[in-house]
Structures are given as C-alpha cells and as structure tokens.
C-alpha cells in the first residue's frame, strides 16, 4: 500500500501532451499536478490527455485541479481528456458529473484519436 504520487509528462507530437498519473492524488499531492498543468498552459500546450491507468486513488482536491483548468484550456482552443480510469475513480467522476463536461475514454488510443480527428 505505497501511497506516493507521481505525475509524468510525455509529449506525443502534434501539440499533444500526456500526463501519466501514478499512485494517490489527494489534497497534499494535488499541488504537484497543479504546477505541471500550469506549466503546460504557460507554454500554450493545451491539448492534454490525463492517463489514469496507474492512478490508484483520487480525492476532490485532485479533481479540483482539473476543474480549475478546463475553462482556460478550452478557451485557448485545447482540451483535457481522461483515459483508463479504474472502477473507483470512474465512480467518483460519475458522482460529481465529470462525464458531462470532460471527454473520458476507456483506452489511451481513443483519447489520442479524439485529438487527431477534429470534431464538428
């Protein structure tokens, strides 16, 4: 039960960046994620995929980071998409209505394709 947290950034080309979350995202670790996303926005990198495949736990403090940035990201013409949520994290996002405002896909490739194929 290692309760650490990591957020790794990986460029995928075409201005798309992947944030791979690992471990436990809570009120203590959320500022790390906040700093990472703020840094991307400063560089006008606003096409972001949040890969949750190795994210074990999230609390509202972690979700609050995404809520804080989604409007400026979209205003800049970008988007923030989620993929590979485990059952518990999907349940939390569902409870808070995330599915109504964020694009959430089952697999990473689906999120990537969604950026590559322009939507109407």
């Amino acid at each position: 039960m290692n309760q650490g947290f990591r957020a790794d950034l990986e460029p995928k080309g075409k201005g798309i960046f992947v944030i791979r979350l690992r471990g436990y995202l809570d009120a203590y670790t959320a500022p790390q994620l906040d700093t990472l996303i703020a840094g991307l926005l400063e560089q006008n990198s606003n096409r972001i995929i949040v890969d949750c495949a190795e994210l074990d736990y999230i609390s509202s403090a972690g979700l609050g980071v995404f809520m804080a940035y989604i409007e400026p990201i979209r205003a800049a013409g970008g988007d923030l998409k989620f993929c590979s949520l485990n059952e518990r994290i999907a349940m939390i996002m569902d409870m808070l209505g995330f599915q109504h405002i964020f694009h959430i896909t089952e697999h990473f490739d689906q999120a990537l394709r969604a950026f590559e194929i322009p939507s109407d």
Partner: protein
Amino acid sequence: MNITSKHQRVECTFPARLEALKDIRLFIEMHCMQWGVSKRQCWALVLACDEICSNIIRHGYRLIDGETLSLGLSMDEHSCSVTIRDTAPPFNPVRMPRREFNLARSGHGLDLANRVARIVYLPKRGRRCYNITSISVPIVETD
C-alpha cells in the same frame, strides 16, 4: 502516533497536516483489511475520511501547525465507523447542500463524502471542547 486496540476498535492521533492524510488512509485500510471489511466499503470510508480530514485541516485549523486529529475506527455487526475528534473552530460538514455539477475548484469534497458514507457532526459545546465527526458505512459481505 499512539495506537491502542481492544476487540474491534482502534484509536490513533495524527498531526493535523495534509502530509498525514496518507497515514490516515493507511490506518483505516490496514484495520479494515484485518477485520474483513469489503474493499468497496473500505474505499468509501477512506474517501469520506480523507475529505473530512482535509477540510478540517484546511478550513478548520487553517493549516496551522501543531494541531491534531484523533481518529477512532470501530466495527460492529452493522457498520464500520470512523470517529474524528478535533478542536478547530466548528466546521459543519453535514450542512453543505448537495450541489449540481459546476466548475468550482473546491467544495466537492463534502458532497462526495456525503454520497459514499453517513456523516454526523457534533460541534464542540458546553464542557466538551472538541468537535466530533462520525463517518460510517454499512457492513456488506462481498465486494
């Protein structure tokens, strides 16, 4: 950290700091596992406790160092519960209305906690100089 154990009740005092949230989660997970609480119910208890403790630390104690949170974890045939005692200015986690989704950065923690667990809050009053927040989930046999 001071732990006492008798039957299916354990108590532990934690520093009221955000760094301690992981220790609080581990404390609950470790004992829930030992007591055979389902993973689903353990997760709900951990999440609700994490949200309530975060709020007490940030909004009650206002991140001031040197304060503590006392947790009692117990289980009977009906429920598994965490009782949190703190001495912060009263901060009622129960009266927060359920809200519709919006883009507010904060304020969703209490909503989330109320959705996964039953929460009862007793502010400090009279001779009792601490607040009590009780978080409980029903016992279910399988995940």
